C-alpha cells in the first residue's frame, strides 16, 4: 500500500456568495487604477460618462502603487470602507 505525503497547501478555500446586484447606482463608486498603461484613460472616460448618466453619484479615484503586486491591505480596507461599488481598470 503506497502512502504519499500531501505536497499541497492543505487548507480548504472558503467560498463566498457574490453580493446581490443592486437595482440602482447610488452612493460612492470607487474607480481603481492598477497603473497599467492607459488604465487612467479608460477610467477618465468612465468617470465622465457616469457623471452624465447618474447625477449625484459620488466618484472616487484610487491607484495601486504597482500592477505587479497585489493591492496593499490599507488600500483595500480604505476602498471597502469608503465606497459602495468598485470599478477596476485592468487595462492593457
Amino acid at each position: 500500500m503506497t502512502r504519499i505525503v500531501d505536497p499541497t497547501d492543505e487548507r480548504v478555500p472558503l467560498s463566498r456568495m457574490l453580493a446581490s446586484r443592486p437595482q440602482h447606482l447610488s452612493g460612492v463608486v470607487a474607480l481603481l487604477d492598477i497603473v497599467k498603461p492607459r488604465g487612467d484613460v479608460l477610467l477618465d472616460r468612465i468617470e465622465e460618462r457616469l457623471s452624465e448618466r447618474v447625477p449625484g453619484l459620488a466618484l472616487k479615484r484610487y491607484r495601486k502603487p504597482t500592477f505587479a503586486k497585489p493591492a496593499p491591505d490599507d488600500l483595500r480596507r480604505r476602498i471597502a470602507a469608503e465606497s459602495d461599488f468598485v470599478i477596476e481598470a485592468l487595462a492593457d
Partner: protein
Amino acid sequence: MPDSLPSFSLTDHHRRVHSFPTGRPALLCFVKEDCPTCGMTMPLIEAASHAFRGEVDVVAIGQDAAGNALLIERHNLTAPMLDDSDLKISYAYSVEIVPTIILADARGAELRRFEGFDETDWQSVLAEAAHLAGGSEPQIDWSVYPKSRPGCGSKSVEPGAAERLAAEASGSRLRARQIELGADEDSFEFMFERGLTDGLPVVPPTPERVMRMLAGTRRDAQEVIATVPPNLAPLTIEKVAANAVMAGCRPEYLPVVLAVLEAVCTDEFNIHGVMSTTAGATPTIVVNGPIRHRLGMNMKIGALGSGNRANATIGRAVKLALRNVGGARPGEIERTALGGPGKYTACYPEWEERSPWEPLHVERGFRREDNVVTVFGLEPGPRLIVDQLSRTAHALAGSLGMALESCWHPKLHGYGEVLLVISPEHADTIKRDGWTKAQVRNRIQEASARPIRELLPDANAGEGMALRHFGLANPSAEALEQRIPKFRKPENINIIVAGGEAGKFSSAFGGWFSGPMGSISVSRKIEEVP
C-alpha cells in the same frame, strides 16, 4: 534512575497479548530467523524462561511472522514468541543488531543490554535475572557455545525500513496529511491525476522518501520558512521536502532549495508578480560558492541545460513548491501567455574558476567561500548570442550589447535587470584586453543606445516609447537625437561565466518588469552545507 523503556503490547503465536512493563522484571530478546546467532541463542532464551517462570518475564521478540514460526518449531520453544513483524518495537528500542538482549526491572527500566552472543554477557545477565527472581540460574553447558559471536543486522535498519519506521513513529517529523493510494493504483499516474506535476513525471513523495529528504537539513520540519503567494500559504520545510522528492532532488540539495524559496518569497522579489504575469517570467537561480562542486552541479558543457541532476532538480523543486503550496498553477493564477522551458526549472551555477572577474556573489558583498543563491525574475529561457568573429573586448562587448537590445523589444529602453552568461571563449577574448566587468557593461550600454526618434512607436513597428517617457511634449529635432541606453543603469546587466570550453557563443536571459514596482533580484546565503 535508569530511563524507562517504551511500553508495548504485542501478541504471541497463540494470539495472546503480552504487555510491557508488567510489574515484574523482564528479559526481552530481539531475534530474527535468518540470523544464525539468533538460532544459537534460542535454547538460552528457552532455558531462562523455565528457570525464572513467574518471577522474570522472558520473551522472544521476533521480527517476521513466518520466521517466528520457524524458530518456534526448530527450537521447541515454549517461551512466548512475540510478533514484531511491523518492526515498530524494534525501532522504538533502537535495536540495530539481533540478537539484542535487554534486562529490565519491574518498572520497565533498562538494567543491562548486549548484542550478538557473548558468554560473559549472558552469564552476567542470567546471574542478575536470577537475583531479581530470587532463585537460581538455569544450568547451561557453556562448552557447546563459542566465547562470542557477532549478531546480524536488525530488520528495522534494513534500507527503506528505517525511513518508514521513522516516518511512522509517534515522534515522527512528519505532520502533513498523508494520502493512501488504492492497492491497484499506480502512484505515478496518481500524481498526474491529482494535478501535482509540471507535466513531467514526479517521484511519489512517500513518507520514507520525505524522511530521507529531511535528513538534508537540521532545521525543524515544521518551521514555516515563508508565506507563498498567490495563495499566501504557509510553507513548512516538510512541504518543501515533499516537493523536492517529487522533483528528484537528493537530500543534500535541500538547503539550496530552502534558500531559494526564502529569497523568492520576499517583497523585493515579488514572486506573486513573477508567477502571475501574462508576460512570462520565472525565478531564475544562480548558485555560487564551493557547494556547486559538492553537489556536482554542471557549470561547463551544457550548463544551461540539460543533463545534470542538481541543476535540473533544484530549480524544479522550487517551481513545484510554488505550484503545489503557493497555488501558482498555469491557467489558474499563473497566467503567462506563452511560458517557456524555464518554467520547468531554471538553476545554474557560475563557473567561478573560469571567470576573469569576481563571481556574482562576491560582487554582491559575500565572501568567495560563502555559498549563495541569487534569484532573478527573468524570461523563462536563455537566448543565444552568436559572435564568432570579434577578436577584441570592444568588438565583442559591442556585439553583446546589440543582441541585448532585443530583450523585450529593441525599441523599449530604460530596461531593468538581465542575466548575461558569457562562455569561456568569449570570456578569454575579453580577458586578453584586460577589461573589467564595468567596462563590458559600459560598452554594452554604448552599443545599445539609440536616439529617441528611433524609439518612438511608428507605422513600421507599433511598439516603442511615448515622448512622455522622456519628459518631452513638442521636442526639437535635436532633442530627438538624444541617445538613450538600453538599461536604466549598467549594474542591471548581471554577468556570470559558464559553459563549455569550445564555442564562441554566449547567452542572455531577458528581464521582466524589474525594479521596486516589479521584481528585484535577491541574494541569500545558504546557511547549511552538506
